[in-house]
């Protein structure tokens, strides 16, 4: 066990956990930030995506010992009132079916658009290909990312 001081959503959090604990489980089990989802645990599906210094990252395979002083942003901290352009676009296009993958999709889309504010549809598909959606909402995800890019 070791003590970690993590910067999450603009606040600092102390946790006492094993070094190898993935950030995902620190968020969910120790800090009550359950918006970040568990699905595969092996960096294949993107349900657990968070931002590490603005970079979309699988939190299920990132050990807490590797986070250091990086800024972590989770879906809960993406915006103050759910009004990030990507969240608004997700509502506007009504993207979700079961919704389980969508926090990860939104986090990936938000990081992607920050880097590439005017993407082509092909670039959107390449970026979003990292996230699985078992319900098959891919058409709507693509549409929503394109809309978010436009309304920014």
């Amino acid at each position, binding site marked *: *066990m070791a003590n970690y001081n993590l910067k999450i959503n603009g606040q600092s959090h102390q946790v006492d*956990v*094993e070094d*190898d*604990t*993935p950030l995902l*489980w620190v968020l*969910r*089990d*120790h800090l*009550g*930030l*359950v*918006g*970040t*989802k*568990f*699905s*595969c*645990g*092996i960096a*294949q*599906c993107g*349900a657990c995506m968070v931002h590490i210094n603005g970079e979309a990252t699988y939190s299920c395979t990132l050990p807490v010992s590797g986070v250091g002083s990086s800024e972590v942003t*989770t*879906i*809960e901290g*993406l*915006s103050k009132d*759910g009004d990030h352009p990507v*969240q608004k676009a*997700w*509502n506007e296009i*009504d993207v*979700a*079916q*079961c*919704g*389980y*993958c*969508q*926090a990860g999709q*939104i986090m990936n889309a938000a990081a992607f658009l920050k880097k590439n504010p005017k993407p082509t*549809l092909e670039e959107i*598909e*390449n970026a*979003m*290909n990292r*996230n*699985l*959606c*078992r*319900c*098959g*909402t*891919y*058409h*709507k*995800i*693509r549409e929503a990312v394109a809309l978010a890019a436009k309304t920014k």
Partner: protein
Amino acid sequence: MKTNRRDFLKVAATATGGLFIGFYWSGCDSPKMQVLTDEEVLSQAFNFNAYLAISPSGDVVIYSPNPELGQNIITSFPMIVAEELDADWSKVRVFQAALDNEKYDRQLTGGSGAMPHSWERLRKAGATAKYLLVQAAANKLGVEASELTTEKGEVFHNGKKKFGFGELVSDASKLTAPDEVMLKDPKDFKIIGTPVKNVKNKEMFTGKPLFGLDIYREGMVNAMIQRPPFGMKIKSVDDSGARSVSGVSDVIVFNNNVAVVGESTWPLLKAKRQLRIEYEPDGPIESSFDHDRIFKELLESKNAQVMRKDGDVDAAFKNAAQVITSEYQCPFLSHSPMEPQNFFAHVKGDKVELIGPTQTPDRARMETSQLLGIPKENITLELTRLGGGFGRRLRADFVVEAAELSKILDKPVKVTWSREDDMTGGAYRPAVRYRFQAALDEQGNLIGYKLRGVGINAGNATRENNFPSGSVKNLLIENIDYKSPITTNAWRAPITNFLAYAEQSFLDEVAIAAKKDPVKLRLDLLDRAKNNPVGEIHYDIDRMRGVIETAAEKSNWGKSKDVMQGFSVYFSHRSYVAQVADIIMENGQPILKKITAATDCGVVVHPTGANHQVRGGIVDGMGHAMFTNLTFENGLPRQRNFDTYRLIRMKEVPEIDVHYVDSGYDPTGLGEPALPPTGGAIANAIFAATGRRIRSQPFIEQKEFSDIKLQIRRA
């Protein structure tokens, strides 16, 4: 109408259980309006029936009884109630109802059956309340109820607003509910048929706790369970390694399972890998090659169960000018919802509290009651949102084991399945092999048809009364079920998820052998079913014709030489769906560009939800037909996570063009019917483009497919 009256009279405390989370995302749209909290609204509201309560503030509370797994029933059911109530949709708050046998029947999600079951009930629930509100207004004004009109939560007399619903609820709730109420003419619908936003968007998109895995309770421990391979039982367990993992408080062997228990999840994932469990045989231990052999043997068996027999099949085949025989096979599949299985259970003496994602809360409670010997009435079950289901959550295994473990531990426990647990934990789509045979006469007419299905724990692997039954004079449908220790379960569009593919591909083979256009072949068969029906007919011929013609028209069927097309149509779960897949060639390479779908599900209640289900069903059908395989080695799946169990991704979906046929019928479900036709449409287009017939799934593992290099690209 009786139901409503009874429900109305029962002024139960509807506001217990359920998830008290409203969906206001637009409170800022009307800053002057005072927004009450959900708790305030619920405590003030008058109950009109099991679905509906209205507060004096005019806020409308609607309960959605069925499990929500992405079909968006939590939006579409309340839309129906609100429609007949003439509610102001912006004042509606939706709550998930807990399991309650007294208030609701058929509180389950499966078989695409909720909409047809509840359509009338929900309409009457809204209409009855409106009737009472109008009557209360009439009494206050001293006029006839017939002189009053309603709109958006208000009552009007001679075009002038007199009351908001909120002002009337106290009086209205004292009136007696009528036995009969008038329902709206569908042409007057104002909410039904509009793209109302999902009522849970804000919570989903801001990461609020909604799902079973998000449940945390005071004093709760976490647990993960190692379940045995199929056909094996525990011989011995060495748990020393697991116990030495820091954060593990207990290891418990129960019921052929080994549970690791602790405060948080990560130590359990580690500890599970440290378990040394020795298993011994408890039945046949099967691998995929065993299944291949079993299929071959049983296809030749003399002992098949006859499911349907029309005419004289032997004579038809003897007199045939041409006989076509083909076999089609599919593998097992895991449901793999994105949220792995999980459940919270707290057994406290003779009381049980259950919380989590299940498609069948009633069954979960019943099985828990049976296992623990605790009466049903002492068990509460609160539904969370389900992160997908696809049929897997129709079973109660993951609920019952949590309850059993809670009893052993004497603590509240949440059991979480890892992805590997979920994929190896059984209840699969059964593997099936079919043999189809068609007899054609000199003119290419279909005079005989035979189908034998062999399934592994598939029950009846055929649907003996589905098309083309009824259109062929001599027909024989047979089934053989092989019993295996590998557990199977309904998987989105049970049986038809593959049967439709096999049958629609085979009909394409028949059309080509008969030198007929595949659409024409189907329409001719439907004509025969209409004019000279053979035996019973279990589908609506005109509705099937309707979707076939619409799909053909919208896809420009056969109009362009540059587009190679595949056709498929299927009737399942009360809805009709026809699909056309388009492949174009670019530099000699086939590119799958588009799928056109025509659906007849009666009234489209919620267009956004319907499009989601049609597109999602097509993506699902396509992904599993093309990419996904679950094979076995010594009683264990070889694929255990998404690195080897390949699910379809964003770059692999073509354009999907969705159309509806307005048949005027009451709505039927859509959770399943769009899936079955997809694989066949694609396989038939692949044949049209390349001359290769793909008869087994997944496509990418078939040698006929290996050098085709099919690309998928949207327009």
